[in-house]
């Protein structure tokens, strides 16, 4: 079924309230509800946690926007209770400036996303839209699961899959591929397909993505989610993954609030970054001046012949990447070749073959282990 049609239908018939906003700042409440109402959503507001919880119990909103800092019941407490009383609601946390840590904490408690004040109206609408689509999915899956109790094992799994997908989805992965995955899982749930194995496989794939994004998060945390640490973050990502995968870049773009375009500009400008997977081992032939006058081009031909790849290429098994570099600062040994972190003074063909072979052997042993 077409997702947007389905959501529109639901909204009109069964779910009167789309968004509930809980915040102690009146101006904020007004601004948000106006934006969302203009966007065609049904909105209610509450000024504190107690009031909000009551309203949520009555009207079962799909998405709840809540401030972390409020007098009385704190945002984190509210979040904990909310997820218990109304598990189908999708909570979105709103934080003030510089409280990224508590936002991360709230994500652990089940918040779907967080918005840092001040934010653009577009950002709000976008977050709510994604929240709503996840909420619809959650409800559908629950409904389907309830109707088919005799097969609850399978549904558990499906629901788990959906949760995982939902999480990946909440990470902001607006990739066609992920949407397709969601649609696929939905149809699985609906038609009780039997391909448990496939679901598991997909679940694993999505879990992998999730883990990668968590690693990216850990790296950004190291730099306090500072925008100006972008190059340092990318260097760490490059070191960890040996390239800059697109989904990680879009994740960073969302987290650090930097347009993806700018991230690509930087990734293209600096030599250290690669937009394709590099090999597990890097072989650098220095073409600095000292190496050039001592015959670096001959060395390059020799290395290239041993590896069977040209400069700038990675072999098909992603074992080795051959690069030229303008001076690695080891000029007295010219012409010099760097293999991983080891330097070699104009290695002969047999020396190169020996080193490459030992690296390949290491690789093979690592595979077996």
């Amino acid at each position, binding site marked *: 079924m077409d997702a947007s049609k389905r959501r529109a239908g639901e909204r009109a018939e069964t779910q009167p309230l789309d968004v509930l906003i809980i915040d102690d700042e009146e101006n904020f409440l007004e601004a948000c509800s106006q934006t969302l109402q203009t966007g065609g959503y049904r909105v209610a507001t509450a000024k504190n946690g107690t009031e909000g919880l009551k309203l949520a119990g009555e009207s079962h909103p799909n998405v709840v926007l809540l401030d972390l800092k409020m007098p009385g019941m704190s945002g984190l407490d509210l979040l904990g209770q909310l997820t218990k009383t109304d598990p189908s609601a999708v909570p979105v946390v709103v934080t003030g400036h510089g409280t990224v840590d508590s936002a991360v904490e709230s994500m652990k408690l089940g918040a779907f996303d967080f918005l840092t004040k001040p934010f653009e109206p577009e950002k709000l609408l976008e977050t709510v839209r994604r929240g709503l689509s996840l909420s619809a999915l959650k409800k559908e899956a629950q409904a389907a699961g309830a109707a088919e109790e005799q097969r609850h094992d399978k549904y558990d799994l499906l629901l788990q899959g959906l949760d995982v997908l939902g999480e990946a989805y909440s990470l902001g992965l607006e990739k066609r591929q992920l949407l397709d995955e969601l649609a696929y899982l939905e149809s699985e749930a609906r038609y009780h397909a039997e391909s448990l194995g496939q679901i598991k496989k997909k679940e694993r794939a999505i879990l992998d993505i999730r883990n990668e994004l968590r690693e990216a998060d850990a790296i950004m945390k190291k730099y306090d989610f500072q925008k100006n640490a972008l190059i340092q973050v990318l260097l760490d990502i490059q070191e960890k993954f040996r390239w800059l995968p697109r989904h990680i870049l879009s994740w960073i773009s969302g987290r650090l609030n930097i347009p993806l375009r700018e991230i690509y500009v930087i990734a293209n400008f600096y030599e250290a970054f690669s937009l394709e997977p590099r090999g597990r081992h890097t072989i650098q032939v220095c073409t600095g001046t000292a190496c050039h006058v001592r015959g670096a081009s001959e060395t390059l031909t020799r290395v290239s012949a041993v590896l069977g790849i040209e400069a700038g290429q990675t072999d098909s098994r992603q074992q080795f990447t051959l690069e030229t570099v*303008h*001076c690695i600062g080891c000029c007295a040994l010219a012409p010099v070749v760097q293999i991983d972190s080891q330097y*070699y003074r104009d290695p002969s063909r047999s020396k190169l073959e020996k080193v490459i072979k030992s690296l390949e052997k290491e690789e093979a042993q690592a595979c077996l282990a």
Partner: protein
Amino acid sequence: MSRLETPADLEKLREEIIAGRNAKEKWVAVCAGTGCRAYGAETLADAFEEEIEKRGLSDRIGVRRTGCHGFCERGPLVVIQPSDACFLGAQPKNVPAIIDKAVTGEGATDKLLYLDEDSGKRLGNLDEIPFYKYQKRVLLANNVRIDAANILDYIAVGGYSALAKALSGMTPEAVLEEVKKANLRGRGGGGFPAGIKWETTRKAQGEPKYVIVNADEGDPGAYMDRSLLEGNPHSVLEGLILGAYAIGASEGFIYVRQEYPLARTHAAKALEQAREYGLLGKNLLGSGFSFDVKIHRGAGAFVSGESSALMSAIEGRVGEPRPKYIRTSEKGLWGKPSCLNNVETWAYVPQIIDKGADWFRSMGTEKSKGTKIFSLVGKVKNTGLVEVPMGIPLRDIIFKIGGGIPNGKKFKAVQTGGPSGGVIPESLLDLPVAFDELSQVGSMMGSGGMIVMDENTCMVDTARYYINFLAHESCGKCVPCREGLRQMLAILERITKGWGEEQDLDTLDELAEFMEAASLCALGQSAPFPVASTLKYFRDEYLEHIREKRCSAGVCTALIAYQIDQERCKACGACLRACPVGAVNKSEDKVFTIVQAKCIKCGACYTACPDKCRAVIKVPAYTIQNQPAAAATLPAGKQ
């Protein structure tokens, strides 16, 4: 270890360390610089430790892994202190003999001593070896004595005493005045007086102010900054702190090239240890002055070594230069006054404060004071890092310290100043090495790369090499640099392929003039220097390529062909095995020939052919039959 709260604490600590060190009679200093590591210095140091342990000499002899000693050509280097006995190219198997020699004065170590070719004598002491004898090592002197990963080593040789002196008895103005009086000029390239730069930042409006170490040593052929930061990171840090004190900055950055992982590790370690001892952070040595430093890794872009570009990179943006109507010393990092100096410049500051401006002014020429480190590399016998007083003639560096050209070849030129510099021919070898003198002859001091070229280096190819490098590294923001380099490269490639015309040389001159006048930053403004200087001093070589389609250095592959001289060939087959493309043919009666159609001219056969035969020879390409005439292969309208 507890924080040092006052300058007196520091002195007390120093005395304690020295007393502890004096308990050992001797130290084995194993060079653990990048060059020596490549020769296996680490296993060598391990071997020393083992042997000393085995003989029960641990109380008497210590082993220290030090920074670069400079004589990288002959690594791994081992120096026994305090006698300064120097062993070259030592291997683990030589360890027992070296220890015998150190303990008893007897040991079979002759082969590890420097052989003076003129007298035939073996020279055992560091100061006797010509490579060291003619140098004046001020900045590099401590590299031999300290382990970069240990702040105590630095304190033991007098480290941080300049900082203590400044913080306890000098006003920031007095520190600034001392540096100004010393006339310390920037070691990174331009030679702008550091004191004046500092003063501009000090007086500029805006808080906070920043101080930055430029360790983005991008010039190919230069590695002195790497060795300083790897070998003696605290000297750079102390200089930076003194600068911050004089300028009034509270935060500093060290911008390190991504290609220098060891320099980064050592710098990070230095920061950590300095913080631990209260030499960095809040209230340094109880003076009330607070200062801290962060490390920023570069991500590989030559142009990011330019000051405004480097600051953009620290801000997390693309490292492109901006027009400098307002200098970065007034509006730099995040629009705040920022003082950027090169590694070597900062490293000089503690010594100037410690020993005084007059001591510094006693070295060098009238306008260029002090010493300068050069990386003496290329076609020279003793490659390595050399530190000499400003004003020493080029000839002394290349022939006295460097030992001249290897393999009996003839000297042709020396290139200084990296891609922004130029070549200097033999006729100018008596030129004193100093900022203004080098600029006058169309080269520059640059960061200190000194690449020696012999008769087998083609000057047109050298110019093409630099322009290719710069065309690759130009950020492309301004037209003169981006397009000018592209056109120059096209012309030079044409000449190296034998398709050049004489009027190309005029076009090159014209382009050079235009680029120098109109480019946005120093990269573009100085980009034509390699072409201009080779054209000035080696025009004949260009004309030889154009008129005769010949490259007498045998470098431009399009103009040469490899052949096997049948009279000399002993049919050993080395060339056949070396050839990566199977272009060497072996007939039934063992006659080896090179199939020109298959040959990619990589030179593997030339290198493989044994020296005693030298049967593979380079000949001008036009002498080979079946080779289409060079001009005929030029596609119509090709740029």
